[in-house]
C-alpha cells in the first residue's frame, strides 16, 4: 500500500510524516514519531489510555487514522508541561498519589485537562462522569478525583 503524506501540528510543532492509510494515529504517534506517552490499552476505544486532544476535542487516538490528522492540531501528554514546569493537573496527580502503576495517567491527564477547559468548576459527579471514558485498574479513582478537584481550585485561583 502506498503511504499517505501528512502535515500536521503536534504540541505546537509542525510535523510531517508518511503513514499507511489504515494506520491509527496512536500507532503513528508511538511507532513513527516516538511519542509513546499515549498508551494502547485496548485499541477499541474502551479504555482511554490513548487519549489525545484533536482540535480542542478529546478523542481516542486508537480510533483516529493517522491520515486524519492532516492540517489539524494534535495535543499529547508530551506537550502538557511547559518546559520543566508541570501543569497543575500533573502536579496534583503527584501530590495526591493519583497514580499507582501510571499506565492510565497520560490518558487521565489529557481527559481531565479537556474537562477543566470546558467546565472549570466541576462537581464531583461531573468529574466522575467526565472521566468515565478512562479506565484505571489500580486506584479505585478516589485519589484521581481528588487530584482533579484540587487542580481545578488551583487553576481557578490562577
Amino acid at each position, binding site marked *: 500500500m502506498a503511504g499517505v503524506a501528512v502535515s500536521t501540528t503536534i504540541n505546537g510543532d509542525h510535523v510531517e510524516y508518511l503513514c499507511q492509510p489504515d494506520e491509527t494515529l496512536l500507532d503513528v504517534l*508511538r511507532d513513527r514519531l516516538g511519542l*509513546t506517552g499515549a498508551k494502547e490499552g485496548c485499541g*477499541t476505544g474502551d479504555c482511554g489510555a490513548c487519549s489525545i486532544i484533536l482540535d480542542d476535542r478529546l478523542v481516542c487516538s486508537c480510533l483516529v487514522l493517522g491520515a486524519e490528522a492532516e492540517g489539524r492540531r494534535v495535543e499529547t501528554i508530551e506537550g*502538557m508541561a511547559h518546559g520543566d514546569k508541570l501543569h497543575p493537573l500533573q502536579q496534583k496527580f503527584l501530590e495526591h498519589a493519583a497514580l499507582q502503576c501510571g499506565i492510565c495517567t497520560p490518558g487521565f491527564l489529557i481527559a481531565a485537562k479537556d474537562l477543566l477547559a470546558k467546565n472549570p468548576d466541576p462537581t464531583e459527579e461531573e468529574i466522575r462522569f467526565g472521566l468515565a471514558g478512562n479506565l484505571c*485498574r*489500580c486506584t479505585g479513582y478516589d485519589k484521581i478525583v481528588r487530584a482533579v478537584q484540587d487542580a481545578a481550585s488551583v487553576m481557578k485561583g490562577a
Partner: protein
Amino acid sequence: MNFDPRFSGRKFTSVGTRPIRPDGVDKVTGRARYGADFNMAGQLVGRVLRSPHAHAKIRKIDTSKAEKLPGVKAVITAADLPDLTDGDAAMYDVLDNCMARGKALYDGHAVAAVAAVDARTARQALKLIEVDYELLPHVTDVDEAMKHSAPLINDAIFTEGLEEKPVKPSNVTKRSQFGHGDVHQGFGHADFIVERSFKTEQTHQGYIEPHACVASVSSDGTADLWVCTQGHFVYRQHCAQLLGMEASKLRVTSSEIGGGFGGKTHVWAEPVALALSRKAGRPVKLVMTRDEVFRASGPTSATSVDVRIGARKDGTITAAEATLRYSCGPYAGSWAEIGAMTAFACYRLDNVKTVGYEVLVNRPKTAAYRAPSAPMAAFAVESAVDELAKEVGMDPVEFRIRNAAQEGTRSSYGPVYGPIGIGPTLEAAKSHPHMKAPLGKNQGRGMACGFWFNFGGQTCTDLNIGMDGSVSLAVGTVDVGGSRASLSLVAAEELGIAYEQVKAIVADTSSLGYNDMTDGSRGTFSSSMATISAARNAIKILRERAAQMWDISVDDVVWENGHAIAKGEKHGNLGRLSLKEIAVASGKTGGPIAGHSELVADGAGVSFATHICDIEVDPETGATRVLRYTVVQDAGKAVHPTYVEGQYQGGAAQGIGWALNEEYIYGKDGRLQNPGFLDYRIPVCSDLPMIDTQILEIPNPNHPYGVRGVGETSIVPPLAAIANAVSNAAGVRMTHIPMSPPRILAAIEAKRAG
C-alpha cells in the same frame, strides 16, 4: 551477617511521611517506559496465532505459505520450542501453555507465531498458516467438569490426595484438606446451622497494560529481554530453562509495569519472542492485543463452594466446614488448596474442616489474582456467617467479634497466630461513622472480613553511597505501585538522612542477585527488610571510616541521625562527621562505601481487613449502585500511608467489579464471548463513590519497623461485603457472583413468586 529482623519500636522520622514518588514526574509527563514503549534497532514485529477452539487435536500445521510471504522472517510452532523441562511437570505445563503441543486446550491457546518486518505483514502471515484441527468435546464449567461423564482434558491425570489412587483418570487433579477438631461433634452442639452453596464466575486481573516484551537473541548465545513483569529474575529462570540457555547469559530488564495484580507472574509470550528472535536473528517485539490478554492470559478460578457453619444460642461457632472446587484451566494448580486454607482463617474455631478440589476446564490457565483464591472462599464463608448471625439474632459485627481469632489462636490452616488485626479491624468498623450513616429505601448495608497470609521470600538489595554522599538503592523487586518511594523512605530512615538524598531503582537481572517475584504482598515487606539490612551494613563501614578519619577505635563511634559521633569524654572535642563528609573522604579511607544484603525474608505477618459498604438495589431492574464504601485494614506499619490507602482503595474497587459485573462468558462452543473492555466491564469512575480507608498499625514482630504486606487483603472482603449489602437491600440471599442486574432480578422475582 548478624541481621536482627525483630521489631524494635523505634520513633520514625521518614517512615510514615508522604513524599512524592521518585518515578512520579516521568509518569505524569509520558516519559516513563512501559513494556510496549521500548524499541531496538532492526526490530521485527511478532504475532501469535491462537486456537479458535476450546479443545482440539492439532493434526498438522502447515506454515509454508506464511514463510514465503515477503517480509516474514521467522515462523515458529511447538517444534521450535523442544521440551527441555526434564521431567519438571509444572514447567512442562508452562511450555505447553506458551505454545500448544499436539492439543489446543482452550480458545486462545497459542499454536504458532510469526516475526515480520511490520504489523500488517505479520497479521497477513498468520492468515496463511494452515492448522488442521480435530475437534474434541470440551467442558468449561467447574461443576460440569467434575462429573464422571465430562470430557477428559488430560487422560494422564489421576486425582492426587485421595486415600487410594483412583483407577480412572478425571479432571480433578488434587484433593487437599485442612482443619482440626471434630466437625461432626461440633455440629452436634449447635443450636443453629446454616448450610449454603455458592458460585463465583471467572474474572481477569484487568491490568490496563497488555503483556509486552522485546527479545533479542545473539548468535553468540547471549540474549536480552525487556519485559513488563512482576518478577524479572523468575522470568529469566523460566525462559532460560525453556530455551536451553544459561541464566546468566540472559539479561532481563523489567520495564515500568502497567498493572499486574498477579497476572504478570507467569511467562506466556516471552519464550515465544525469544524463540522467534533466535530463529530470525533479529530483535522481536511482541505485544498482546486486549483480545489476547483476555483469551490467553490471566484469569482467576471460577468456583463452586459449599459451606456449613453451626453456632450456639450465645453466638459461639461450634463447627465450620467447607468444600471448595476451583477451576485451574487445563493445567494442574493449587488454587482450591489456597482457598481451603484461607476460608475460615478469620475465626477461632474448635472444629473446622475444609476440602479443596482442583478442577481442569477448557479455559485459560488460571493465574494468580491479588490474594489468589481467598476472595471466593471469603464470599461463601462471610455470606454464611452473616446469615448465621441473623439466625442467632446477633448483630453481624458483634457475632464476628465474638468468634474472631486472636493472638495464640490455632488457625484453621494450621499455624498459631502471633499478634493479629482481625479483632481490632472489627472494633474499628463497629465504631466507624459509616455504621451510623442513614439508609434509605431499597438500600442495604453489608460488612465482611478477609485474611491473607502475605509472603516474604528471597531478596537481594544493594545500597551504594556516592562520593557526594547521595545514596543509590538498587532493588530486585519490581515496583508495582510506589515501592521505590517507600524503600527510599526506609533507607533514609535507617541512615538518618533526607528522603531526597536517596534514589531507588529496580536493577536488571545482571546487576543484582536473585529476587523472587513481587507477589504475595512481599515487595515492601521483604525489600524494606533487605534495605534495612543493607543500610546497617553500610553504617558499619561508615563508622569504620569515621574512626579511621579520627584515628580512634571503631567501638567509640556510634551512628546517629545521619552522623558518626565519637562517644566518651576523651573524644569530646571531635564533633561529628556527616555521611557526606565521610563519603567525600572515602577515596582516601579505603574506597567506595556500600552495603549489601542477601536474605530470605521470613515472618511476613498475616493481614486482616474488615470492609463495610452500602448498596442501593433497583427492584425493577436489578441494577445496583455503590453508595458508601469503607476499608479498615492492618498494615503493621504504613511506610508511605498514601500508597497504603491506594492499595486499600484499588483492591476494594477490583472487588466491587468482581462482585457486581465482571465475568468471563463462554458460549456453548467453548469460545469466550466477551474478550474486550466493552463487554467485560470493569468499574469506571462514575460507578464508584469515594472509598474511605482506615489504616490500623499492629506491628509485625518479625520486621524491624513492624511492616506487614498490604497489597492483597483489600480484595478479599468485597465480594462478601457487597453480597451481604445486596442481600439486605433486596431481601433475598445472593449466592452467585457477579450479582449482575439479571441475576439480582431473577432472585427478587423468585422470592416474589414464593
